[in-house]
């Protein structure tokens, strides 16, 4: 397939990319012992994107034969002309990526029965060990993105990037309603590559249940501005939502406040934050990328260095518009999708402070352990949900808190950072980001002490 795409790409009438792309996914989901999902999916095809006078034409079809490939190229050309760009905007040529990056599991594949068995045994074990639960949800899922890409500049690359996740959710009845808590295991690789054995799962479940028990006995947190310690498990979503999105160049072009602060001190000097190719600076992120979907080889991008805003994240087009070099941030979710400016492995660099010292430094505040969903904004005002946390009173952990939302203006909040931990955590199971299309991302960082706004009725 790669040879066919390379040959066709060399003959494109303008700058363009050809991509064969298939997403493979599986999901087993059990609720209270009832199997609600048990299947797999595959969605693949070819696409062409051509650039013409400052605008793109894109076409895709669920096939990969020569006739279909010729048809999508012709339709993309028609669409580019229909887009009718008028700008003599120059070419989009940049460095051309190459190589094959195949992360398929080397282990023997698990059978459908073995996969269902992981979930079934786990469900039985949880319900036997913790009989008071109102509900138990278990989900075992996998996703792999398989791509073959060539562009008119000579980029030629293949990849297969898998991830897998095991999610367990438990619910109990508290005196004021149902209280739920979930956690995720897994990350890079296929299900076969994960450690879902009893020795790994037993202590993990014990901690989850203990946090749930304490959460059920806990209360609402007090709304307002507070000193907090964000556990390393939250650092990734902070890096992603608070800073990463705000520094995507398409958002900068639309008016993100980050555009007004390039080269300025926007955070404590303890903060260094980057977006990385490969599997991140330590090679352990839940996501891997080496060449993006425009054919650009991936380079690391320093977004904030010692508190100073240094760079934005670019596609070829935004780099051209802002006079920068793209570093491989243009990514598409499926064969039907065009590449957008996206994050890859975004993380805050670890510091030298101890978690215990951070908690000990707070007289009255909160220790926030786990996040749910999050959202960013052009103003750099971010939020994310927190489903597990504890009060801090006189430097010690107190009662647990119920679900809440935290928010802040990133470029203010990051200046309030006083401690950056010597720990580091990539988000388990891998993160997903929504922006016209969903996309797999890696995100991570250390624990952080800062000041942040909490929602709540307390």
């Amino acid at each position, binding site marked *: 397939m790669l040879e066919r795409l390379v040959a066709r790409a060399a003959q494109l009438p303008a700058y363009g990319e050809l991509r064969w792309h298939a997403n493979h996914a599986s999901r087993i989901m059990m609720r209270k012992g009832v*199997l609600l999902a*048990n299947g797999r999916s595959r969605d693949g095809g070819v696409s062409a994107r051509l650039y013409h006078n400052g605008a*793109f034409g894109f076409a895709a079809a669920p096939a990969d034969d020569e006739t279909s490939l010729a048809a999508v190229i012709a339709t993309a050309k028609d669409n580019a002309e229909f887009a*009718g*760009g008028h700008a003599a905007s120059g070419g989009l040529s940049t460095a051309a990526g190459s190589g094959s990056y195949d992360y398929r599991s080397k282990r023997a594949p698990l059978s459908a029965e073995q996969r269902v068995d992981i979930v079934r045994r786990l469900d039985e074990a949880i319900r036997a060990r913790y009989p008071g639960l109102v509900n138990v949800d278990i989900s075992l899922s996998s996703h792999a993105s398989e791509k073959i890409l060539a562009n008119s500049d000579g980029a030629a690359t293949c990849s297969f990037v898998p991830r897998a996740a095991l999610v367990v959710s438990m619910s109990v009845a508290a005196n004021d309603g149902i209280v739920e808590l979930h956690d995720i295991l897994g990350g890079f690789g296929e299900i076969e590559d994960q450690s879902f054995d009893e020795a790994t799962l037993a202590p993990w479940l014990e901690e989850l249940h203990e946090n749930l028990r304490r959460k059920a006995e806990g209360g609402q947190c007090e709304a*307002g501005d507070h000193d907090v310690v964000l556990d390393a498990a939250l650092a990734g979503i902070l890096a992603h939502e608070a800073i990463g999105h705000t520094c995507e160049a398409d958002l900068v072009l639309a008016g993100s406040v980050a555009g007004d602060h390039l080269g300025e001190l926007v955070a404590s000097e303890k903060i260094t934050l980057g977006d990385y190719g490969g599997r991140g600076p330590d090679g352990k992120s839940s996501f891997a990328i080496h060449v993006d979907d425009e054919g650009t080889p991936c380079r690391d991008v320093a977004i904030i260095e010692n508190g100073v805003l240094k760079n934005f994240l670019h596609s070829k087009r935004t780099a051209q518009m802002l006079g920068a070099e793209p570093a491989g941030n243009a990514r598409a979710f499926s064969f*039907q999708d065009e590449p957008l400016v996206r994050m890859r492995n975004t993380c805050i660099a670890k510091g030298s402070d101890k978690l215990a010292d951070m908690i000990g430094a707070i007289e009255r505040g909160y220790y926030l352990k786990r996040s749910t969903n999050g959202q960013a904004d*052009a103003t750099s*005002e971010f939020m994310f949900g927190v489903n597990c946390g504890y009060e801090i009173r006189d430097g010690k952990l107190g009662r647990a808190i119920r679900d809440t939302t935290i928010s802040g203006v990133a470029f203010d909040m990051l200046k309030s950072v006083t401690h950056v931990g010597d720990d580091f955590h990539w988000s388990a199971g891998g993160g997903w980001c929504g922006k016209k299309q969903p996309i797999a991302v890696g995100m991570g960082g250390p624990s952080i002490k800062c000041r942040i706004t909490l929602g709540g009725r307390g």
Partner: protein
Amino acid sequence: MSAPTDDFLDQILARAKDAGATAAQALTNRTRYFEIEFDHRSVDLVRSTENETTTITLFRDGKRGGATLNGRRPEEVEAAIAAAATAAEAGVADPANDIADAPSLPPGDHGPLAPDRAAMRAQVDEFLASLPARHPLLRLRDSLYTFTDQETEFANSRGLRQRERRGRHGFRAMFMAKDGPLTTSFNAVGGSAFSPFPSLYEAAGVGRLMAECERSLERRPVAGKFVGDVIVTPHCLTGLLPSIAGALAGPALLAGSSPYKDKRGERIASPLFSLDNAPRSADFAEGADFDEFGVPTRDLPIIEDGVLKDFLVGYFFSRKLGMAQTAGVRNSRVRPGETGVAEMIAGVKRGILLSRFSGGAPNDNLDFSGIAKNSFYIEDGEVRHAASETMVSGNFQQLLQDIHAVSKEVVNFGDCAYPFVAASGVTISSK
């Protein structure tokens, strides 16, 4: 889209039987999609895609397995059937697992067959040409004018056959305002309709939101912390109501986590609040004639004058829970009230006009907390200023009870339709 009816699904069912199925069903979606994407300067992308996805569900002695593929490559169809058979064999037997027995409907045909691309382009050009005069400070990104033609076919081994086609236009705008160093939050709105939108400024109420956006450049936090009123806009309800509907649906009832699980026939909301599920509604371009089990959909009141009339229970959960099937597809409509929006605002002593809620997903108890985005502070019946760094917190169970006005004005988004809803008892706080 004029794809011919063929025997593709029948072949799949026959192959499923060969693979050991005691029952099987298949659902195919054939989609042609056309999109013009633009920002505030110009069109930056024209995209057209085709796809055909087929979901095969195979039953074997009360166990169920599934596989979804796209296209019709014979080797991939065979692989999908084999995967579904293997999954079913590995599954967990449940008496609720079965295919449906329901009447086959005459084929449904809704909306135009194909887009008028030139007319759509002309509308986008007109929209962009008039934008600087109408909203000089507004910036758009990833805004879309689309046409989707989707044909859905269903077949099961009990002889149930369904088919419908829907051609619909869609519009989405994502925008913010910027004036020198002043920047507003992003706002976004989307909607769909069978016919082309007469004007893109009128699609899904986007004109009002754009005007509000430009008025939001000067924002400040709402002072202090207090319990006040909230007027939830139709756009904000699109994000909030799915949490409430989820608590009324089969999965939450099976989990036992729904606060409404024992409340059928009881008052769970203000008498001013009525919620219907209306997938057959002629003005919902994104409705459906039948569900994923091939069962014909029907319109049904869910909450009527504040009383919970029915849950939202699909085919599998109706069998699992021993309840009547009430919904396989969700298209929510909150019935309009008798109060004008201006009158609602005039009635607020202290509160928020909540246009967008950016918060953590509400928990099983329906507690919520999040930022009031694109929202305005109201005091003594007047909109005072745009709010920044302001959070709203409360509980949806209580909020439904505390509704004191529902507007006459309604926005139809193509898959749901909502009025403005005013309620009391929400905690409003800032830094």
